[in-house]
């Protein structure tokens, strides 16, 4: 969908020298994926992004957007077919929110009523009430609200491709996380092809299907976030990702990825002896007790019931905490550490017991990538 071939940009400095802002960058973003261009400032990521919609003219190389060579398209027409979001948001203060959103549809000559209806739909999509916000001016919105409008403005004419230049960079961390989640939820439905500039490694890991790391105008590595974190190609990338990069992988994995089956369970009326046997057979130290419909209610620890008799109900302890199967491992591990546990029961949205995770299973999963790679020594 977006394809760059040996794309280069040479800037001339005032004193006659030249700067290679982008050096033979080649990469391809498949349809429906988010590619984050990542790197320290001055690495050429923004230059590369702005060459895609022609805001910065390229020196050499080829750019294909939606299968068309951009050299063959009028830049104004090209830009109308690509959504563009910038860090400063760039809502026009002289126009209402409605008119701001309708800019590209109006440029494309959409029927006015159709464009206005679209604006209302889009506001709904980001949980802003159209009846309140359509007629407001940008200065009457909070920063987070403005940024949401900035994003839906880029989506107004339903372009297949979006370019986003640090779109969430100017928002406070709490709102940023909320808007990122909102955006990802929209993306699962919209399946846009997105090039996204960021200098925030955590944002990149969260948002990206693919990450392109830049340094001094060169594309250093182009990989999925997990592969990038597991196998950084060189020392620069490894240090850019941070010494805790293995921990960062936790947020890429879901609880369900490492969850062990919840088939082994007992109910309140079961005999303790049965529970003990099940634990011994499975080699577990704990067993979860479920309610009549399968909700996680408590657990038994093997050492506590070695000599016990009676029903499970008489001996069980409450679960200190559980974790949702859809949560990421970062959340799960953090919760385990907080409650000083080596395992945790996993439940679905309704509280039904699905299985459990152990610290061992998590570290095994993270370590698995390194056991079959020779670059393990890199730190």
């Amino acid at each position, binding site marked *: 969908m977006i394809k760059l071939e040996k794309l280069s940009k040479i800037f001339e400095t005032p004193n006659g020298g030249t700067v290679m802002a982008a050096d033979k960058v080649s990469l391809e973003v498949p349809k429906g994926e988010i590619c984050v261009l990542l790197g320290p400032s001055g690495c050429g990521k923004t230059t590369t992004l702005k060459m895609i919609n022609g805001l910065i003219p390229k020196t050499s190389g080829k750019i294909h957007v939606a299968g068309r060579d951009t050299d063959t398209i009028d830049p104004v027409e090209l830009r109308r077919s690509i959504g563009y979001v910038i860090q400063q948001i760039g*809502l026009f203060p002289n126009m209402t929110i409605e008119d701001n959103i309708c800019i590209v549809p109006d*440029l494309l000559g959409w029927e006015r009523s159709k464009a206005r209806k679209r604006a209302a739909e889009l506001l709904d999509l980001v949980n802003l009430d159209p009846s309140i916000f359509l007629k407001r001016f940008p200065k009457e919105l909070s920063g987070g609200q403005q940024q949401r409008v900035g994003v839906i403005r880029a989506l107004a004419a339903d372009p297949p491709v979006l370019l986003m230049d640090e779109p969430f960079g100017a928002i406070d961390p709490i709102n940023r996380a909320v808007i990122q989640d909102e955006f990802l939820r929209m993306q699962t439905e919209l399946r846009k092809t997105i090039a996204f500039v960021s200098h925030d490694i955590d944002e990149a890991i969260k948002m990206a299907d693919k990450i392109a790391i830049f340094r001094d105008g060169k594309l250093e590595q182009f990989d999925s976030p997990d592969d990038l974190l597991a196998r950084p190609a060189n020392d620069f990338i490894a240090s850019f990702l941070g010494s805790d990069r293995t921990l960062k992988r936790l947020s890429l994995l879901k609880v369900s990825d490492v969850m062990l089956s919840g088939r082994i369970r007992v109910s309140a009326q079961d005999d303790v002896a049965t529970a003990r046997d099940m634990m011994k057979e499975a080699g577990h130290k704990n067993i979860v007790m479920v309610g009549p419909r399968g909700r996680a209610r408590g657990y038994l620890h093997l050492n506590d019931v070695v000599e016990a008799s009676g029903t499970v109900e008489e001996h069980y302890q409450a679960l200190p905490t559980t974790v949702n199967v859809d949560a990421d491992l970062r959340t799960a591990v953090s919760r385990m550490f907080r409650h000083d546990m080596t395992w945790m029961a996993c439940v679905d949205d309704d509280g039904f017991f699905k299985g459990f995770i152990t610290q061992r299973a998590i570290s095994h999963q993270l370590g698995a990538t390194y056991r079959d790679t020779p670059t393990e020594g890199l730190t």
Partner: protein
Amino acid sequence: MSRSIRGADVSETMKTRAALVLGIALGAALTVAAQGYFGEIWRTYSEDIIYLTKQHVVLVLISSGLAILVGVPAGILLSRDFMRRYSETLLQVFNIGTTIPTLAILALSITLLGIGFKPAIFGLWVATLLPIVRNVFQGLRDVPAHLKEAAQGMGMTPLHILRSVELPNALYVMFAGIRTAVAVNVGTAPLAFLIGGGGLGELIFTGIDLNDMQMLLAGVIPVGLFSMLADYALAKGQFWLIPRGVNPLRP
């Protein structure tokens, strides 16, 4: 000269309003009161006042109208990227121009156009032009670069960006310049009499020369009223013509 004039705020419109009320009260006293000091002035000079006020208004309207017609496009032109290399130099030349006293400009315009109405218009036009050009230029240059980038990135053409993004966002500063310029114009217009341009200056300067206080006031009061009225009209224009989203006067 200050880079741009953004003085007016809400309290200032209140002041303008108060000044207008005061002006109306004065005017009422002037025209209605059949007796007393002002009544006598009116009885003596009413014909002159009406005739000369018309001349005065024509002088101001034509000269400031022409100044706006020329100044706004000139400011827009200077603010374009391809003019960037020359615009500061040109504006410096303009700035030096503003340091020349208006009386000197009027005198100089005699050498070009002789005496009468035309050189008066020309002199007033020059004096009015500079603040307008300066503020239009500055207002457009102060439009944040990211707005222009967003506009360009969405596929707006340069002309469309100028019309829908740059001008509306610069309008407040531009209007402030026009308001200042018109104030300068109205204040300078009485000098037009000195080069044969007519207007209420005739009563003022003749009044001074003859040491005739009544004649002097017959010129001064209408000039004062007119300047307040002109500023009030522009303040109203500033309030209503500038879009709400970029108008600091409107909530």
